[in-house]
């Protein structure tokens, strides 16, 4: 075991990333993905791991404000960059308007797609405060949800964007 491990140390590099505003220096190998760094090295398990094939969207995080699939983003690419994850959305106990809207609209069932959805929606609304339905669909086309049929998720985005959609849950 010791030599197996030391052999694999070859090629490790230190990267510096900021995650939810906190700076980290982390030793990574070229094959390590961002989702591994977040979940395994930093213990930020809010970001989910669903397919490792870059197709389900549950691992979506924001890299420099843009949604990326952390399962197919290499950790080395994130050196010197700013990452935001679901853990960074709430301010203390206060949920972001997007998080709140997801609860108000029943847009969360099993919750496994939720962290990725929240990040995609957050990125959308930061760029476009008043998205149209096609724009919402475009922004979420890479995020699968098996539970909700997406109807409640669209309503949540519209509520968060202040488009007059009222909460259905109390």
């Amino acid at each position, binding site marked *: 075991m010791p030599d197996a491990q030391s052999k694999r140390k070859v090629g490790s590099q230190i990267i510096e990333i900021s995650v939810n505003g906190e700076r980290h220096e982390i030793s990574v190998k070229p094959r390590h993905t961002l989702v591994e760094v977040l979940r395994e090295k930093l213990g930020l398990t809010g970001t989910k791991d*669903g397919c490792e094939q870059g197709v389900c969207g*549950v691992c979506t995080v924001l890299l420099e404000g843009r949604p990326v699939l952390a399962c197919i983003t290499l950790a080395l690419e994130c050196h010197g960059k700013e990452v935001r994850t679901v*853990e960074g959305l709430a301010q203390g106990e206060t949920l972001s308007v997007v998080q709140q809207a997801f609860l108000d609209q029943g847009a969360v069932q*099993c919750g496994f797609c939720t962290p990725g959805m929240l990040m995609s929606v957050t990125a959308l609304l930061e760029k476009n405060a008043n998205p149209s339905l096609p724009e919402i669909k475009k922004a979420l086309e890479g995020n699968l*949800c098996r539970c909700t049929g997406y109807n*409640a998720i669209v309503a949540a985005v519209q509520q968060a964007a202040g488009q007059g959609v009222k909460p259905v849950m109390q």
Partner: protein
Amino acid sequence: MGELSYIGKSFRRKDGPDKVTGRAMYSQDVKLPGTLIGRILRSPHPHARILRIDTSKARALPGVKAVITVDDTKGIKHGFVETPRYPPDQEVLARGRVVHVGEEIAAVAAIDQLTARQALELIEVDYEILPAVFDPDEAIQPDAPQIHPTHPKAQVPFSNIGGRTATGWGDVEAGFAESDYVREDRFESHLRTHGYLEPHTTIAHWENERLNVWTSSMGTFIKRAKLAKTLDLPYSAVRVHKAYVGGTFGGKIDLYSHEYCAARLSMITRRPVRIVATREDIFAAYRHGQPLAMEIKTGVKKDGTIVAQQIRVINNSGAYRGSGVVVIFLAWGFTMIPYRIPNLKYEGLSVYTNYTVRAPQRGHGCPQIRFAIESQLDRIAEDLGIDPVTIRLRNARKPWEELPNGDNVHEAGLIDCIKVAAEKSDFLGKYGKGRKAASTIRRGIGMGVSGYFGGSLIYPNGSGVIVKMNDDGTPTVLTGGIDVGQGSETVISQIVAEELAVNIDDVKIISSDTDTTPQDIGAWISGMTYVTGNAARQAAGNVRQQLLDLAALRFNVDIKHLGIKDRVIFNRNDPGQRMTYREIIAHSIATRRGDTIIGEGFWRTMRDEPTHPSLATTKGRWSENYAYSCQVAEVEVDIESGEARLIKALTVHDCGFPINPALVKGQIDGQVSMALGHAFLEEVLTKNGYTLNPTWLDYRMPTIHEMAASDDADVITEQYVVGKPYRTKEVGEGLVSGILAAIANAVYDATGVRLTSTPFTPEKILKGVRKLAREGKGRQ
């Protein structure tokens, strides 16, 4: 008791804040120090004899901590069904033979992924390839390859028939003779995966002679039972912990080999072992739903009244029994719930083939058989010149009808469901119009009906709930009920809040841990709101009674004068006499040495029935809760490309009454989406037992672009009264069924093309359109 404060209202999910902040712990989020990575070696062949397994090289690899094969197990078999007729038929690792691609042969535990993967490559297996069979019609021929040569057969001399359900009533031959019109059709359904986003994950830790497990499941108690059995441990030595579950839809009930292997490897290494199924494994080696072939012969009177029906269902059940023998029983049940059938002859066969094993899948046979029956009913209606609404109303079961199995449908709302659905969708105003349109984009409307049982008897048959009062006057609820996304924690909290007159935010809920919570039926028999919910109601009612007794003693008045509101008990005749729960508990501590206030509740359906009905003969009571629904689909079909999509769905259902209407709506929307995937998009493509499209890139699950408008209406047939038992009905899986049938009927309405097999691909639709054009029947 007047107004309800919590029941019938859409409260936000109890688990919501955890789920939107990333705090919710799923099995994959459980971290234990020193965890080893487990991986499974799977069969590359659909059918082969294992001549030799050599694990020595793998064992010798640095970083490998354990390697197991079937020789390291106790050889105890398990099965989804374990009855005298259908005894457990599967070992946790293959012994001597593999019968499907992906069958588990060996497992390793190593210090990391890479080492575990290398170890698998070092395991040497010699195979002798055996002939395989994939088509059930071929598999039942006498000379077909025998998949389980030593199994007792359900029907000699056929090969590979793993199970048979045969039942009926009346005299079908006489019924057909009496009929004015008889029609025979054959329908087929296809292979679909469940599509849960969370991959199967198990982490097991053997510590102090006890096994701790976190695993993706739909019921921690059933998992404990199967793990304890196959590991040959007492139930009490196995603790399945609570973990949130990222979608199930039927696919996380069975014991999976990786769950056993994680546990066994941990017992050997004395370190935690985690096994995660890759998405490719899930597509290629795990359990999907059940493709059925359905032959249906129906005789009716001129007015559309069903006189006789003969049904034969053949299930391609894969290489082990799985739930294959259940689905052929259920297909009978889902046949007889909605419509009166005076004479029925039913036969279902579950046939072994060299495919992966099948699991229950949301609806468990219902979407398939309703698609068949409802499609044929529309054909009959058209042949007789009757509209789809009238023919359904003519045959729909009425309230309080007795079913042929002895069950009663109680306040069945089917007739109202059909009427409301027809009215709300302007069904007859739209029906038949699309086909006549001049454009190449056609609209069509179709209807489908279904009925579903709730909370039948299967281990552990019933649910217990404990409510204990804290000194501050708030309740803590202990329930074995698992929240897989349906919202059970919220629903149970609403019931406790209502019964105890406490704020829902003050209800603390601890769930689905086999050590700390009472036994529970689990989220897989469509009965948690009814069974576990009634247990919660009882437990909370028990607490309420104790609090009232204490207050009555303190106020020195008869209990009947006491009122209860917002955690306060008061004397209706003397407003000065009032005590908060907190004060009552403090008083109890001071005067009665503080006996803790704990309420217990237990519920089980059909208390006097010992067990579930016979899978082979259908004899015995099945359920006391039958839910009904009528669904309408509006589709758009491009007759030049064959592309079709669901534009609008309407679901009118009788779930008794909704405890949380928004949660019910969430179930409906999700089922509509799943059904449109079933109809148009999803198919696990296979060749010779190999999966050709093992990723979501090639397996098209509905994305947000396929979202359909989903409307609903609830036909309320039952009510909730504080302190009384209530009856809710199934709402979480039956509604994938009527809508599938409705989509098929809507495609016909739009195009004149009758599709007899799912999925409704552009190729099939185009073929039908062209055929109509050739026959001169094409409209345009």
